[in-house]
């Protein structure tokens, strides 16, 4: 307001005294115009300011974006892109009978080395490297290390960005059949494998191949999986051929019942072929003979898991029940050499059954106790011509296992286990195990 007045005064002062009236009037008019111009502009500005203040009062201003704060969230670290690394240390002490061989009566063994050593020993150490490769793939590598041996347990890629519930996995991987199959020994609830998996696969079924998984867009968890592969592992063999060596199909459903209960169940099917699959059996005379099986092996598996935790809080008490069962059909030819067989070619036809059921209860934080019952049924076994040389048994192998484990943290576990092993006819054995499992490095996430 003041400024136009001052300006007018200054202009008036600067005006020469002898200016004529006409000039003076023109000048006055100009000054007056300037004055009104300024006043309208200032009024407009005042009005805008008032409007802005009013809208700020009604619209509470949102808190300032934490610009500096977010910057601190991602520290720059040259090692940040290294894969996740973890190492599993396992070992312990086993008190076992001195037996020349541990066989499962009535089942063709997988020919793998027998289980745990007597006394103190370290089990295979597992080295795991895993990482997202790019936005499209994840890679995973798991090697087992022991004296003079390195085994590639798993080495696979998995898609991340297919969408529609689809995931493709390729390379060497544990098959998605059954429940326990995908778990490595350190994730087992007992120090030893169950009898069913021992009879079916030795440890678990792994394969070189491709897996397609699909999760349905439903509230009820529904997953379907299909696998094709080389089929080199027991109960199949490496047959040096092109094409598809084996296939597997599986489906799982699962869900929650209230806050406290959750479950998953499924059915799986594995079809593979064996050529000259060698195993050692005992003939009627008690002599070890070598057999070679060539033919088809078809396995059906059913699995069910149920977990309970009060209000879903697993930290204090929780309970887990798991059971699986199988039916395996093998048919083909069986060569038998040595002992009473001499060198005789027979047929082989077997339909066999078995399963296990286990319960593990966390009775207080860090402490769990569990019991597992294993039962196999040799079903019908027909050696053809060799029925004269090889005994067939109705004996049903069983095993009872009791364990207690203590986990000082998520990364360490100590376990004591007692097993009454009746896997071989006439060979009752009391077994004791003390086991440790330590996990170093990246915090691994475990499946259900």
């Amino acid at each position: 307001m003041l400024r136009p007045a001052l300006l007018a005064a200054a202009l008036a002062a600067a005006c020469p005294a002898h200016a004529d009236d006409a000039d003076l009037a023109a000048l006055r008019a100009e000054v007056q115009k300037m004055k009104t111009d300024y006043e309208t502009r200032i009024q407009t500005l005042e009005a805008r300011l008032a409007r802005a203040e009013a809208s700020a009062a009604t619209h509470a201003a949102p808190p300032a974006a934490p610009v500096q704060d977010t910057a601190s969230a991602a520290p720059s670290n040259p090692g940040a892109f290294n894969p996740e690394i973890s190492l599993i240390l396992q070992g312990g002490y086993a008190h076992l009978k001195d037996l020349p061989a541990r066989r499962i009566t009535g089942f063709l063994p997988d020919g793998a080395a027998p289980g745990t050593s007597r006394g103190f020993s370290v089990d295979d150490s597992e080295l795991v490297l895993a990482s997202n490769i790019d936005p499209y793939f994840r890679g995973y590598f798991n090697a087992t290390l022991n004296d003079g041996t390195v085994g590639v347990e798993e080495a696979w890629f998995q898609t991340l960005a297919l969408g529609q519930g689809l995931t493709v996995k390729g390379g060497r991987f544990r098959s998605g059949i059954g429940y326990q199959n995908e778990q490595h020994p350190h994730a087992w609830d007992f120090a030893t494998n169950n009898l069913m998996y021992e009879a079916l696969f030795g440890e678990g079924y792994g394969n070189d191949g491709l897996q397609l998984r699909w999760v349905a867009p439903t509230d009820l968890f529904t997953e379907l999986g299909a696998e094709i592969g080389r089929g080199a592992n027991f109960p199949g063999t490496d047959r040096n051929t092109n094409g598809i060596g084996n296939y597997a199909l599986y489906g799982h459903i699962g869900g929650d019942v209230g806050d406290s209960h959750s479950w998953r169940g499924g059915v799986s099917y594995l079809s593979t072929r064996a050529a000259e699959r060698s195993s050692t059996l005992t003939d009627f005379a008690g002599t070890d003979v070598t057999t070679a099986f060539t033919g088809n092996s078809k396995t059906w598996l059913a699995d069910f898991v149920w977990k309970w935790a009060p209000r879903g809080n697993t930290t204090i008490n929780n309970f887990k029940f798991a059971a699986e069962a199988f039916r395996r059909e093998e048919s083909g030819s069986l060569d038998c050499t040595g002992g009473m067989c001499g060198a005789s070619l027979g047929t082989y036809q077997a339909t066999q059954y078995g399963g296990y059921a286990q319960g593990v209860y966390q009775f207080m934080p860090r402490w769990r106790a569990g019991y597992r019952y294993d039962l196999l049924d040799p079903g019908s076994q027909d050696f053809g011509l060799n029925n004269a040389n090889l005994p067939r048994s109705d004996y049903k192998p069983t095993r009872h296992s009791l364990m207690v484990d203590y986990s000082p943290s998520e990364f360490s576990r100590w376990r004591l286990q007692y097993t009454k092993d009746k896997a071989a006819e006439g060979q009752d054995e009391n077994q004791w195990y003390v086991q440790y499992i330590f996990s170093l490095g990246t915090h691994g996430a475990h499946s259900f």
Partner: protein
Amino acid sequence: MKAFRLFAFLVAAWPVFAHAALNVFACEPEWGALATELGGDAVKVYTATTAFQDPHHIEARPSLIAQMRRADLAVCTGAELEIGWLPVLLRQAGNAAIQPGQPGYFEAARQVALLEKPAVLDRAQGDIHAAGNPHIQTDPRNIARVAQALGARLAEIDPAHAAAYKTRLADFNTRWNTAMARWQAQAAPLKGMPIAVQHEGFPYLENWLGLKQVAVLEPKPGVAPSLGHLAEIVAQLKTTPAKLVIRAAYQDPRPSEWLAEHAGIPAVAMPFTVGGSDRARDLFGLFDDSVAQLLKVAR
């Protein structure tokens, strides 16, 4: 082959199952509640955990995989809080939209400055988080910050409802700022109040209200205290007394109750998140109850 036929049927029938509303998978109840505040009818929120479950230790249950499969947006705390289970869900769900790095993956902890960033990373220190303490939801100012980012994210992935999200966010901001002013006024007497905590879960609450934490019951984060350790804390509290000992609703009540009995101070279960108490039915109730619980002792 039957499996293949079922597979084909389900693939063909897939559009039937599709939903119009935006499916939000919230890892924790506070983010589920926030998504509901900001999304209203435009979103369908599934909350993966409850206030009575320890978010560090959740089973990667089949039901969670099924929900993650259909999610358009996953809202989680991050900062390694869910490291034991969320990665399994993300990998097994076969959902490309919610993979880390995609707009459909939202980490709340990235929106705020984290406290207690460990100087040394060593598992001998217990269950520590490299990025800092992830329990950010106990400070309403953090909720406000996360709300800004989440509101923007909802609008980004669901542009059809962008205007509605914007309006709801502005409305939430107004109500939240009013409520914060109220809580701060109510909580004035709490400033400087000495407290003991069972788990290092409350640094943000302490920071907000000016509480003074004088003792932690867990010797190391995630490690349950032994009786010997608790006895030491009772002795320690004789020289530096605390007004009360607090724990989250999901935690084992025994350590803080033992301490309460032996140190002669009240033990209080804080709701910690939405659903943790009868009053904590939504985010507003959560802080109404948290402040009220503390005030009850301060008087």
